[in-house]
């Protein structure tokens, strides 16, 4: 469990014959322990870059990230992060079980413990019975469940999700969202969920941050004060979706489109 605070985060990419490209322009937000926060923004904004920075794949150009009050570092003692990407990114030549075991193999777990943990999280994502299947034998939604189990098996303090359901059809995406809420409530993880889908963000989150196009900043914050488990047809969610849509329109006007 962990809380995260991002202070005035800046990310610039150097370009060959041009001034640096500012992708994130002073992003400030905080996520409470156990909170489900969505970062909602138009396609092509710095959302994925933000997750790459949190993953330690990209250095930040300015500002600060603190996890539980300590400067963020990705080393052995730091808070553990679990990742779910837009595509499942499974190793197709490994069985489902061995895919979930992958992040554990560098650690101190014995083979039996790895298998036990993998089994536990495959149960949680309701894939028991599919442990010995290969990823390409599963549907897209099931592959994404494997990816979620793989993210959870490291018992992360924070779960980072980058548009994980955007490649699924709407029916399957809805099922997966309901499953995600169930898993989140069972595991009490802090979740940062990146998406460009307004109704998805409204359905899932405690709170959502509407962020601007490049350079990305927080434009507005919306609290979703509706009890879980939620119903897609809930009028309050519908009203909030409309409200967020209006925020989006206002943002587009302000940013000259």
């Amino acid at each position, binding site marked *: 469990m962990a809380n995260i605070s991002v202070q005035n985060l800046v990310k610039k990419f150097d370009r060959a014959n041009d001034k640096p490209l500012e992708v994130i322009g002073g992003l400030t937000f905080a996520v409470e322990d156990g909170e489900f926060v969505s970062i909602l923004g138009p396609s092509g904004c710095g959302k994925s870059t933000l997750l790459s920075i949190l993953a330690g794949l990209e250095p930040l150009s300015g500002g600060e990230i603190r996890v539980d009050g300590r400067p963020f570092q990705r080393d052995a003692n730091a808070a553990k992060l679990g*990742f779910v990407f837009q595509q499942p*990114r499974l*190793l197709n*030549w490994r069985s489902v079980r061995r895919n979930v075991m*992958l*992040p554990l193999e*560098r650690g101190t777990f014995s083979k039996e413990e790895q298998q036990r943990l993998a089994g536990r999280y495959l149960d949680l994502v309701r894939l028991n019975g599919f442990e010995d299947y*290969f990823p390409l034998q599963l549907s897209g939604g099931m592959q994404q469940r494997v990816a979620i189990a793989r993210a959870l098996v490291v018992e992360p303090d924070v779960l980072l999700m980058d548009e994980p359901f955007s490649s699924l059809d709407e029916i399957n995406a809805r099922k997966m969202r309901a499953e995600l809420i169930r898993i989140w409530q069972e595991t009490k993880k802090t979740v940062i969920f990146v998406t460009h889908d307004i109704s998805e963000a409204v359905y899932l989150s405690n709170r959502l941050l509407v962020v601007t196009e490049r350079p990305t900043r927080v434009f507005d914050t919306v609290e979703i004060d509706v009890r879980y488990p939620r119903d897609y047809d809930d009028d309050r969610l519908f009203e909030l979706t409309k409200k967020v849509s209006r925020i989006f329109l206002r943002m587009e006007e302000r940013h000259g489109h």
Partner: protein
Amino acid sequence: MHTTLKIYSLAVLLALWFGLSFVFSEHVLPGPLPVFAAIWDNLQSGDGFFHLYKTVSRVVFGLVLAMFLGTGFGLVMGLSRKGEKFFESWVMIGLTIPAVVYAIICLLWFGLNDFAAVIAIGVTAFPAVAINMWQGVKDIDMQLIAMGKAFQLPKTDLIRKIVLPQTVPYILAATRYALGISWKIATTVELIGMSSGVGYMLHYWFGLFSMTQVLAWTLSFILVLLFIEYVLINPFEKRATAWRPAVQV
């Protein structure tokens, strides 16, 4: 279905050979029967096995050397841009030098022995392996690497568990290709400077103008290569790619 077609195609080839052998004299194209009889005789005498064994062992050691060098260079070239720029010209030069030049150089340097043969085979075949591996590593899914990094896998794990498994199809293609090259260069080396092996026997029977024996030795080795392909490489390929669902056309 596929097996039947393969057997059928071989039968057609054999029939064609049989038919043509009536058109030409036995000094130009002896028929399948005398050739297979010659193979049988060679094997009966024990000599046949000895020369086949010599060539096969040279090919195998040469192939191992080529795979080792080629995989190493291919990995470096595929994984690092600097490595690619640095070794690209080496591999291209290596590829353009005719095989017979390697054979001559190795025989002059190391003498008329098996060591020279193995080195010549390995050095000739390695650029092709390197190119295959280089392309294979470049085709690797970078998103999987990013996934591995996000889960903080150490570099050795990234290579062993994410990079290498993706190159298995390329390793297999490289092995097949290198096997073909190795056998050709092996016969060349044996023809120039060895006193054993299939190449040596080809040279010997060439001196005696025996077309039947030349074909018999060539065919013997083709059978050995087919054995390697269908009994060793094919089953391995089936097992290594079992995770891929069968393509239904």
